[in-house]
């Protein structure tokens, strides 16, 4: 395989990971505030369909993305309202929405199946695009991919380096303390859940107007990305940088699956496309197993040197969720 194909492939990995990065970072915001929005898979399908339908009908890409953000925010608002105000199970409501939004997308998207729609144009950055190697990979993309680079950095800086970001961490970790310090915990949870939903709602049109342009109903190949984004949120340890790394790794694996396809003719493409899922389980196992009690006990029995090495390895991989994730807050 010559270098040019590899470079274009890597550029494709960055592009196809962009929607997943939006969804994952959106979910990271919601979960940092203490709310799990399990509806992502439905949100992405519904907004992919709606964004495409709006863009086709109005011939406006901007309106398509706007529709996506709006619907994503609305679905997240249902999750926020039912869990924060009505104190119902977040997981239950999110799961129901994941399924219902998916069916809604397939039902309402029926008339738009297979239509020719607008597509986000590529936008090489003058000067930077001509740099050898790096130019092809990073700077001959469309605006969405540049937006995903920006989002990773902005989200990271916001969460870890700004006052509101520290407050966001606070309402997810110790809501009572944050409340005493003057934070309106529930209102902030509403805000970040809806913000996260809007970011995830942009992921749908990013697929249907760019990465996998068009709407093809059940064979659009988008079913599953929402669940991946949810898993990547955990893998990323609620850190945008690490989450983005996970998203790129996932994209790389899917690309490798496609590249390897011709040399493995006996394996249907559908099988290689799911190859990342067992890996997803494995990585979740790696980042979680350090929290298990029996591991501590087993480690204690090992010789000093091995024990230290293994413990350090597990600690560096381990992630722990915000302490009050999924726990309603009562300000009494």
């Amino acid at each position: 395989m010559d270098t040019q194909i590899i470079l274009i492939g890597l550029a494709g990995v960055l592009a196809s990971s962009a929607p997943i990065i939006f969804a994952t970072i959106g979910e990271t915001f919601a979960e940092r505030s203490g709310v799990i929005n399990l509806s992502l898979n439905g949100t992405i399908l519904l907004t992919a369909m709606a964004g495409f339908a709006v863009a086709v009908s109005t011939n406006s890409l901007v309106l398509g993305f706007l529709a996506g953000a709006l619907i994503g925010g609305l679905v997240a608002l249902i999750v926020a309202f039912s869990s924060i105000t009505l104190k119902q199970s977040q997981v239950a409501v999110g799961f129901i929405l994941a399924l219902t939004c998916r069916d809604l997308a397939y039902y309402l998207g029926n008339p738009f199946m297979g239509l020719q729609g607008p597509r986000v144009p590529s936008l090489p950055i003058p000067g930077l695009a001509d740099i050898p190697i790096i130019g092809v990979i990073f700077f001959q993309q469309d605006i969405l991919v540049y937006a995903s680079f920006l989002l990773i950095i902005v989200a990271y800086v916001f969460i870890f380096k700004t006052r509101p970001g520290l407050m966001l961490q606070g309402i997810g970790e110790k809501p009572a303390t944050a409340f005493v310090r003057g934070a309106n915990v529930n209102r902030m949870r509403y805000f970040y859940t809806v913000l996260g939903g809007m970011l995830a709602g942009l992921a749908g049109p990013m697929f249907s107007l760019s990465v996998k342009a068009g709407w093809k109903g059940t064979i659009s190949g988008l079913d599953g990305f929402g669940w991946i984004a949810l898993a990547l949120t955990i893998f990323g340890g609620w850190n945008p940088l690490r989450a983005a790394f996970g998203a790129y790794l996932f994209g790389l694996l899917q690309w490798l699956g496609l590249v390897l396809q011709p040399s493995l003719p006996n394996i249907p493409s559908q099988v290689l496309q799911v190859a990342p899922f067992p890996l997803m389980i494995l990585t979740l196992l790696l980042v979680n197993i350090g929290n298990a009690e029996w591991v501590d006990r087993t480690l204690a029995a090992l010789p000093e040197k091995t024990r230290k090495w293994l413990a350090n390895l597990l600690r560096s991989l381990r992630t722990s969720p915000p302490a009050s994730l999924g726990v309603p807050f009562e300000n009494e």
Partner: protein
Amino acid sequence: MTMMKTSSRWSGIGFQALAVLLALGFTTLVMLISGADPLQVYQNIISGAVGSPVKIADILVAWTPLLLATAGLLLTFTAGLWNIGIEGQITLGAIFTTWALRVLQPTDLPPALIMGIGFLAGALGGMIWAGLVALLKIFGNVNEIFGGLGLNFVATALTIWLIFGPWKRPGVGSMSGTEPFPLELWLPTLPGFRLSPLSLALGIIAIAVVYVLLRGTYFGLRLKAVGRNGRAAYLMGIPTTRYMLLAFLLCGLMAGLAGATQVLAVYHRLIPSISSGYGFLGMMVAMLVNYQALWAAPVALFFAALNIGSIQLPIVLKLDSSLSGVLQGSLVLFVLLMDGVRRRLTRNQ
């Protein structure tokens, strides 16, 4: 005291009725947005579900795996577990059943025995897949939602690989599935119908067993304790991990049987979407009945009727049949929301 209880029960029913109205209103709105005539659509769904004896029997065919899945899920939900992996467990059941049949088909064993072994193999397949989720959760701290989801995708890939690879039809593999089994390996059906009384009985027995288990046994009581407060249950001396593992295995067993009935009584081969989404639908049923076994059977029957009723929508009205999913989902959602509203109002009183 009694009066208060009665009035709260009545207000509960009132809010549930309101939830049903809201769900119908929402679904009607969705139909209007798509440019369909709601009356015509509802009429079609009803006639598609109960328009002829064959269709009514088809509802029972769909009810069977849904009952099995719901029955299993009631156990995991009671233990406080989200067994989203049930779809994969149904699929693995179907794979194991197909496998057993393929291996035993050339032998001289009587067909009834082969099918019996097929059921056992299906149950085993479901239990293995559920056991994996349980082990990942108990020993790896991997949340059962993600372990289960990942294994669902793996199960689907495994099915497709088998259909296009080792078990492909003579000639070339296709999405229509593996080569159908000979007639003697089909579970007997009522003459003129697709309904197999034996598999229907299996579904009814499963939900009845779960009802009794949860209602009147020490096991059910302890399972509830684990689900309500695992830490407290552990301190009281209940081996929580063992109970969680048991709940998963029993649910996997029933899901595996659901997969077995799909192969033995419905499709007579392995197809790519062999689980038909009954696992996720079972989760919806369990949520809608607030995890109470008593109401699970009639609600599952209603959901099965909606599924069958919507089959002819694409042919007659050019609408996607996923509309039944919209109605089912909005029903569960509004019932949950209205329950929250009612609690909030009574709290504030």
